[in-house]
């Protein structure tokens, strides 16, 4: 059923007033301690069912709510052959027709207002103009003056239409017109329906309003019951729709549906609160309790699912908006270091208020800590060791330079005449011979022609080898030592 049709049906239900009924009211304490007037079932009202037995009507409601409606069962046009009437499959008492019949006097006024040709909008406009006039009894002249945007003759014609529809009563003695009570309701409902389409997000609110309207109109309680079932059906539809969109991975539609479902859940909670007194009349009915449980189950399930969907999608959206913002401790430290203290304080200054309680110092803990501090052993540095006499050794004589010694020894040898180097180098052991050879080369490098040329020895290296064969030396490259001609002895100091 389309939303607009659903609303139209609910308004029709709301207008099912028990004409001429006697209504008993009672006052009973409610939880808050206040008293609330509560309407009870009409005592002498016409009722299609035996008093207190609403089972057939509820069976019908159950049938209507649960039965799938095929396209072939859509409402057909009223243009039918004269005398035709739908045939019923059960006695009329078991159908909603008796209830609907109660609504017909006012519903027919709607038909008289809007159901006759192209003049409907003019009639509705004139009716609404008349409904807001401060005077109750209106002569035709006053009516014509109040509808200044229309010619007086046209206004007169429309007034006649409204009178024929039962919306205006005519007092022939005073020659005045007066809006009937029903006409005021019709004008108000027409005003409330001044919208091109029904906003689906507000549909539970609208159904709740029709329940209040039905209550105000003294409509039978079953009408509110039917509206309640209709509201549950909307929640169930929302739940199915959310499940379907979750499977479709359609984020945008999913979020929109979840938000709508959430608002429906809130509205349904309000509806249950508002109509608690009315529903209390059905608490003895097992079927109603079942529907009541169904409603609360849907409120919980749908509310939870919608909240999870919204939370999840909003979180994802938040992540997308923040882009690659990933906060590290290093970032945080950098941010706080660059911000001034006033900016940082502004983060929490609006909400962080000091507590009222006075934080008393814990004297026991303080003195215990002080006692512990004072009783700690003081750590002193270690004392230095006892002084002792240090043994003092005389300094060694400077060692003679082996190169100098070698130079002197070679000069002494040369002074006696030419001689082979091996005569000085080969001295008894191999290590000693090697050491003397190194010293001789060092002395020649330092004091020979390549050095300061102060050594009075001339080395002449021969190509021959001389055989030694003793004192651990086998062969020696023959090197002759001579005294250079025309040179004075070297100063050894």
């Amino acid at each position, binding site marked *: 059923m389309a939303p607009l049709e659903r609303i139209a049906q609910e308004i029709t239900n709301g207008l099912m007033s028990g004409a001429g009924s006697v209504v008993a009211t009672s006052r009973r304490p409610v939880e808050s301690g206040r008293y609330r007037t509560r309407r009870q079932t009409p005592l002498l009202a016409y009722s299609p069912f035996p008093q207190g037995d609403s089972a057939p009507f509820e069976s019908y409601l159950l049938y209507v709510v649960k039965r799938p409606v095929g396209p072939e069962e859509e409402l057909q046009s009223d243009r039918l052959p004269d005398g035709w009437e739908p045939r019923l499959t059960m006695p009329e008492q078991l159908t909603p027709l008796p209830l609907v019949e109660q609504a017909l006097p006012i519903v027919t006024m709607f038909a008289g207002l809007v159901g006759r040709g192209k003049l409907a909008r003019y009639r509705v406009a004139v009716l609404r103009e008349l409904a807001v006039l401060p005077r109750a009894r209106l002569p035709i002249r006053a009516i014509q003056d109040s509808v200044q945007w229309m010619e007086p003759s046209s206004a007169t014609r429309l007034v006649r239409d409204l009178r024929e529809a039962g919306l205006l009563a005519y007092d022939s003695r005073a020659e005045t017109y007066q809006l009937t009570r029903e006409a005021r309701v019709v004008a108000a409902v027409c005003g409330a329906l001044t919208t091109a389409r029904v906003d689906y997000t507000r549909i539970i609110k609208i159904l709740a309003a029709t329940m209040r309207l039905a209550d105000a109109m003294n409509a039978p309680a079953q009408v509110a019951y039917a509206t309640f079932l209709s509201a549950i059906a909307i929640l169930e539809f929302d739940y199915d729709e959310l499940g379907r969109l979750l499977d479709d991975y359609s984020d945008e539609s999913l979020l929109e549906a979840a938000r709508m479902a959430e608002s429906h859940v809130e509205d349904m909670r309000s509806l249950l609160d508002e109509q608690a007194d009315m529903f209390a009349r059905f608490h003895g009915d097992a079927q109603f309790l079942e529907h009541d449980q169904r409603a609360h189950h849907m409120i919980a399930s749908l509310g939870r699912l919608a909240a*999870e969907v919204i*939370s*999840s999608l909003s*979180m*994802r959206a*938040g*992540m997308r908006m*923040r882009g690659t*913002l*990933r*906060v590290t*401790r290093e*970032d*945080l*430290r*950098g*941010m*706080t*270091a*660059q*911000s*001034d*203290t*006033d*900016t*940082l*304080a*502004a*983060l*929490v*200054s*609006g*909400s*962080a*208020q*000091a*507590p*009222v*309680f*006075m*934080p008393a110092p814990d004297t026991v803990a303080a003195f215990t800590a002080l006692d512990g501090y004072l009783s700690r052993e003081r750590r002193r540095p270690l004392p230095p060791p006892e002084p002792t006499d240090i043994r003092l050794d005389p300094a060694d004589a400077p060692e003679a330079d082996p190169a100098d010694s070698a130079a002197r020894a070679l000069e002494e040898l040369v002074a006696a005449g030419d001689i082979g180097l091996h005569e000085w180098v080969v001295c008894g052991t191999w290590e000693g011979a090697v050491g003397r050879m190194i010293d001789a080369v060092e002395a020649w490098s330092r004091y020979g022609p390549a050095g300061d040329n102060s050594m009075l020895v001339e080395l002449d290296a021969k190509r021959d080898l001389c055989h030694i064969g003793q004192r651990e030396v086998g062969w020696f490259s023959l090197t002759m030592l001579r005294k250079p001609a025309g040179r004075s002895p070297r100063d050894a100091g």
Partner: protein
Amino acid sequence: MTPVEICRALLAGVVSAEHLPELGDDDVRQEVQYRLSQAGCDLVYSRHFDSWTASFTRGAPEAAVIDSPTALDSLDLAVLAVCWLHLRFLPAENSRLPVDDDALFAAEEPLEIPLEESEVAGSIPALSRTRVTISVGKLKRARFLLQREGKLSAGPMMDTIDEVRATEQARRLMLRHQRLARLQRQGEEPSAQATVPGGTNGAADAAD
């Protein structure tokens, strides 16, 4: 306990919710809220510590406060903000990162990492270390912070901070900081190129 007794208990300190089951009743809670509001106080519930206490609705007028040990000045609030950023904002932000796409509805409580006092002092170089120590001491006494084993963690009064508002402001600051850092890096790159031998063409282009 009667609402009056509850008010006395709340004004005396932080009370565990299990000792005040009466506050689970809407009527009693409203009565307590009303009585506290008459004295300029709010009823405060700490979600993390499941406890109740009372806080001032607003800070006391400065002229009226001569020497209040509990009053928090702007420097104390700055230190509190830094602690909140490290203890609550950082874990919450990182817990929101989509670790696993399948975990669509996972909502675990962010893990709080205790904070060193030196970390707080390092985060506010504008304040001396002594000043930070004083502020941390005041915040500990006011139960905004707790100290366990030498480290700071959030106390029950930390839950009074309006996290939604503070988080939005912190994100703005963080984004601005990151943008500034990026601009600075971009500014340094051309100058670094200009100092490279042979990089004069870029400088000439910039001059043009």
